[in-house]
């Protein structure tokens, strides 16, 4: 036995949460009941997770400004925008519970913008039938994360910051038993033994070159779960947000909140045409994200793009005071980073990779995955958003399913008497694997491999896809994966970003291949997945989700069918709340 193993630091918990973003914190807060030990691991410092990047708001059907809104309409909007490959049960629970979860935040100290009546203000957003997004200016995610962060530290939760998990460990019976990790600051290993794990590690937007995601979104959790045998679903579904910054190069991809359009901004092409009138005359700029992103893309392809290849977004007509109050972050962002005053001039925007709808397949009620003891919530999970996510639904998702995952893991951990045992040899082998890059001199540079990966993804699996292109991309990923086995690094174990990047790149490469396989299997265009060789949405393809796993490869799984009372909501071809409002209008 190596000395490294003999001196290994070890912690034991009833519930271990991996990921200290919104979903992870919410899960930990839920699981931390008296007598239950809860640990939470974050790859960054506490309160820095990608959740802070969510800007526009959290969707919950309070009906504070539009009184016809209700869970049915939220459910309707979510399913319709997801092009009906979402899991209806996940969406149903979600729409039901979102308002309650948001109110909870208010009790924990979040301060939302108010309506004139003193209630929580709600703003319109793309493809939401009503004004639905509770918000705090344009930094809703930060408010949510900060609130949960301070809630969590007031509870009995042990928090591990800047710790990277390298492997999920199972016992002989295949149950979750723990995780091996290392402290980024020292490079020392740490072993976590636990009865249940909540995976809340976010998405993998960093896989693309132009992305709104922060560095952490490297899909570690997705890859960890996949390697451990979890089922991954809808991997082909990657959301491109219509509006990211374009210029200067350093900020390319940085998010421009949908709130700009929600608060009344218009999109123009280089000829000054408000082109969304052409692509979606009904919903215009507030169409769903896949439609708006594709429209901008098409305009640029047709030669009507802005100087740096985007579209113009203009909100100047709302006046400086309004803009600075409702969109202070955007104002500041453009002023300091691009020298553009958005209260006085229009600005360039272009689609940017934003969200991964696919992920670890989990149950609606408890967030349980196919691995006993592994639960998944937030962006790393899937099923809620289907083929296209609605703005504001991810923040609500964190809250609703963060809580449910916490509950699920808590209940599971209480059903188990002992912490499952881990094979020491497995731990030793993993430690060896993690240390390997130090012994490779003159190996591949992980930062440059990452750049190559991003190029491949952007060129072959971007907003516009086709069969041959995808095939070629997959081949390139496989070649790159082979090369990546030879990644080498310099320096010591103490806070060594090169070393950290090795595992990020490994995770991303694993998931990249799944994206290609999923995209190749889905021979149609649906939501965010747009294939030029299959330009139409095909009803027969809409019956399937594509599920991938290490053991079984890729397989088709039927999309769950809604029970009749839910299916009836879609019969009128319009959202239930909209119908209600029209009926009321007729009566008066």
């Amino acid at each position, binding site marked *: 036995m190596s000395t490294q193993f003999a001196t290994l630091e070890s912690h034991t918990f009833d519930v271990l949460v991996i990921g200290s973003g919104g979903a992870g914190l919410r899960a930990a807060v839920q699981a931390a009941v008296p007598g239950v030990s809860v640990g939470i691991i974050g790859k960054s*410092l*506490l309160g820095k997770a990608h959740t802070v990047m969510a800007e526009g708001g959290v969707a919950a059907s309070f009906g504070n400004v539009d009184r016809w809104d209700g869970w049915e309409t939220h459910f309707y909007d979510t399913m319709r925008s997801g092009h009906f490959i979402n899991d209806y049960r996940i969406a149903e629970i979600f729409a039901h519970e979102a308002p309650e979860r948001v109110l909870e935040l208010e009790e924990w100290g979040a301060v939302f913008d108010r309506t004139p009546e003193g209630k929580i*203000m709600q703003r319109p957003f793309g493809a939401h039938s009503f004004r639905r997004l509770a918000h705090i200016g344009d930094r809703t995610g930060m408010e949510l994360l900060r609130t949960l962060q301070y809630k969590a530290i007031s509870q009995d939760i042990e928090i591990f910051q800047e710790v990277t998990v390298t492997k999920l460990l199972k016992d002989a019976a295949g149950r979750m038993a723990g995780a091996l990790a290392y402290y980024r*600051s020292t490079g020392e290993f740490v072993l976590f033994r636990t009865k249940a794990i909540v995976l809340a590690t976010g998405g993998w937007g960093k896989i693309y070159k132009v992305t709104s995601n922060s560095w952490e979104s490297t899909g570690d959790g997705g890859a960890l779960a996949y390697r451990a045998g979890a089922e991954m679903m809808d991997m082909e579904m990657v959301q491109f947000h219509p509006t990211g910054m374009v210029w200067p190069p350093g900020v390319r991809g940085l998010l421009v909140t949908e709130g700009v359009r929600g608060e009344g901004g218009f999109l123009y092409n280089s000829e000054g045409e408000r082109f969304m009138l052409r692509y979606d005359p009904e919903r215009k700029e507030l169409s769903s994200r896949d439609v708006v992103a594709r429209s901008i893309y098409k305009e640029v392809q047709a030669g009507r793009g802005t100087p740096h290849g985007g579209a113009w977004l203009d909100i100047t007509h709302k006046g400086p005071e309004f803009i600075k109050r409702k969109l202070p972050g955007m104002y500041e962002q453009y002023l300091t980073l691009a020298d553009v005053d958005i209260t006085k001039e229009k600005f360039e925007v272009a689609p940017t990779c934003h969200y991964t709808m696919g992920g670890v397949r989990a149950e609606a009620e408890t967030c349980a995955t196919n691995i006993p003891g592994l639960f998944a919530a937030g962006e790393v999970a899937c099923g809620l958003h289907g083929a296209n996510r609605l703005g504001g639904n991810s923040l609500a998702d964190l809250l609703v399913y963060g809580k449910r995952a916490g509950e699920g893991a808590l209940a599971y951990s209480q059903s188990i008497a002992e912490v499952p045992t881990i094979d020491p040899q497995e731990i030793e082998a993993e430690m060896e694997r993690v240390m390997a890059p130090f012994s490779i001199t003159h190996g591949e540079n992980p930062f440059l491999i990452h750049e190559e990966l991003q190029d491949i993804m952007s060129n072959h699996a971007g907003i516009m896809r086709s069969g041959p292109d995808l095939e070629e991309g997959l081949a390139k990923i496989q070649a790159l994966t082979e090369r990546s086995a030879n990644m080498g690094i310099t*320096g010591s174990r103490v806070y060594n970003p090169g070393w950290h990047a090795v595992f990020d790149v490994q995770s991303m490469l694993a998931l990249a291949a799944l994206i290609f396989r999923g995209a190749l299997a889905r021979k149609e265009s649906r939501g965010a997945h747009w294939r030029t060789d299959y330009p139409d949405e095909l009803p027969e393809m809409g019956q399937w989700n594509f599920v991938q796993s290490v053991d079984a490869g890729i397989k088709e799984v039927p999309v769950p069918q809604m029970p009749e009372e839910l299916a009836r909501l879609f019969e009128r071809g319009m959202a239930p709340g909209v119908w209600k409002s029209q009926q009321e209008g007729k009566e008066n």
Partner: protein
Amino acid sequence: MSEDIVLSIYRGDKSGGEEVRYTVPLTPGMVVLDAVHYVQAHEAQDLAVRWNCKAAHCGSCGAEINGRPKLLCKTRLDDYQGQVVHIQPMQTFPIIKDLVSDVSWNYETAKKIPAFQLSQSAPLQMQQFDVDRVQEFHHCIECFLCQDTCHVLRDHDAKDQYFGPRFMVKIAEFEMHPRETGDRVPLLAKQAGLDMCNVTKCCTEVCPQHIRITDNAIIPLKERVADQYWDPLRALFRRKKTTTPTAPDSAPTIRG
């Protein structure tokens, strides 16, 4: 236009170190963090820098650029044309490596602030003009640049006597919340060490979120302390607030 810019980055750890020069090609709109990443990818893979969003939302990349506490991601290199850009980690906290410092003291301090406390349940009835004041404090991204620049912590290392500007903002956020019922004035007067602050406003000057920390958080809190402890006239008329909340006994641990 392939102009170059010279960075002088602190390389070292607990045992010491020195600034090392790197030359980086300048691109339009480049921020300091871009240049640091360039160095990392091409010259020094193990150059440690903490960052997350590169959009001034997360507050991870605080450091000192030519001696001024700043966010690496929000500081444009074209502000420094013709100069050598010296980049150092925050000086108030112990160094881990290169540009990364150990900010764990802040997280330990955060736990000493009693949790938000309401006597009613949501939905709360609050007007926008009621919440405007506290919403300013909610802009905080916890970059700890204010803590870094505060001379009480920086020069006098009085971390055991003063929570620092960040947590004055946090306490103000709870204290001035229209419906929050806890009375945090005793905490401010004693444990939090509000009277260690001599209102020299450096925290306000460095705040990347432009929170007017001194004028809107610290001074009003000092006035509230004066209300309760220094005003004999008011003491005659004062009503007691309901409760004085305390931080949990079983304070959770934060590691890493």
